[in-house]
């Protein structure tokens, strides 16, 4: 019984109610990381594991030649939304760099494809 209590206590460390805030890592995105969508999305949405500081969190989408095709980012809680222009078929890379509310900075990138 005591062992169960200890196990639950540690599992609770990962609960969302935890007062601390860990590094903000990317949890998932839409379009999904590495996946292909049939047509141009109207936006790219990123879900993070922690709340973000909007003033110090941003992202952009670039095409295969490196040109920026996103039109701006908005942040609300753990979600970042990037507007994008109409994307022709091709491979696009999302670069993100965020500051979580506990001041940890993290960054990353991934690709998705349109119509290929």
């Amino acid at each position: 019984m005591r062992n169960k209590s200890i196990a639950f206590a540690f599992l609770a460390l990962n609960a969302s109610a935890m007062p601390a805030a860990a590094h903000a890592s990317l949890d998932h995105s839409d379009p999904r990381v590495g996946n292909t969508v049939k047509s141009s999305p109207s936006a790219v949405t990123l879900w993070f594991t922690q709340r973000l500081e909007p003033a110090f969190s941003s992202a952009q989408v670039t095409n295969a030649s490196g040109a920026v095709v996103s039109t701006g980012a908005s942040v609300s809680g753990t979600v970042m939304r990037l507007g994008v222009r109409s994307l022709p078929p091709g491979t696009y890379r999302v670069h993100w760099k965020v500051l979580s509310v506990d001041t940890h900075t993290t960054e990353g990138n991934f690709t998705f494809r349109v119509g290929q």
Partner: protein
Amino acid sequence: MFTRLARAVLCGPALALIPLGAGAHEIVGNRFFPATLVADDPGVNDELSLPTASLFKTSDIPSVNELDIAVEFSKRITDDFALIVQPTWTHLYVPGGPLGNGASGFQNLETTAKYRVYKNAEHEFVLSVGLVAEWANTGAKSLSVDTFTTYTPTLFFGKGLGDLPDAVWWARPLAVTGVFGYAIPSRSRTIIATADPDSGDVTVDNSPNPRFFNWGGSIQYSMPYLKTAVNDLGLPDFFNHLIPLVEASLQTPVSNFAGLDNVKTTGTINPGVLWVGDYFQVGVEAIIPVSRQSGTSVGMIAQLHLYLDDLFPTTIGKPIFGGPVTPAKPF
């Protein structure tokens, strides 16, 4: 850690201590390097392993069971420099023997000073240097702990393979870590005089204290990396937190071992898996000796590892000294 196992193998006491990694998780760009259990990793962070437990059979003839329970506390002094303290309690006992048989106590205290020299987010590369010290006579005499201090200047690195080309996208979640150290005893020889209680005869054991090249590392496949940086396959969330890995920890005698038997490379290979969360990770690995001199059967090692920098980011989870946190630069 490394030196303990190797020295035990060469000198022949019952104690044959498995190395326990003094490591910390590290984030380099897309890459998350977890704390590893056996081979030291390059991370510099505020962390607590509570505990790391291992059970295996020593290389002695006949072999005895050895249970090690270690605690590791890593504290950043600056953002790039950390001090690590690792006490380890050991219980040696004969399998199937009477209850309470064997010997117990703390091993010599081990400390590590580690400095992160270089970090490259684009190529997921990190390099650290450190000095590992195992302090003489800080452990239990019943375990025949060393009466000399061993200093091990050490190089650590980590490299993620996220910069591989698209044709081998499936290999991008791979990462390797490595550790290379040169263990230098503070005394070149250990002289122990023992008197026979019956005859009164005195025997003198004069043994060299060898120098070792300690080497090892890990190969990891990060499912979190696969999901968030390569290809989100829509797997159940539990699998997206797993990092299967194989660690290796080996010790090669380099010098000052004349007259000793079993002068060979010894160590263990450790396949296992980690589950990493936002605030802690758990890991379990097998301990597979690479030779008869390294152990006599497969053992197990398990660890609960807490990320203090995430649990307590404004108190014990931040560096003691250092400037304000650099905010992310908007694009």
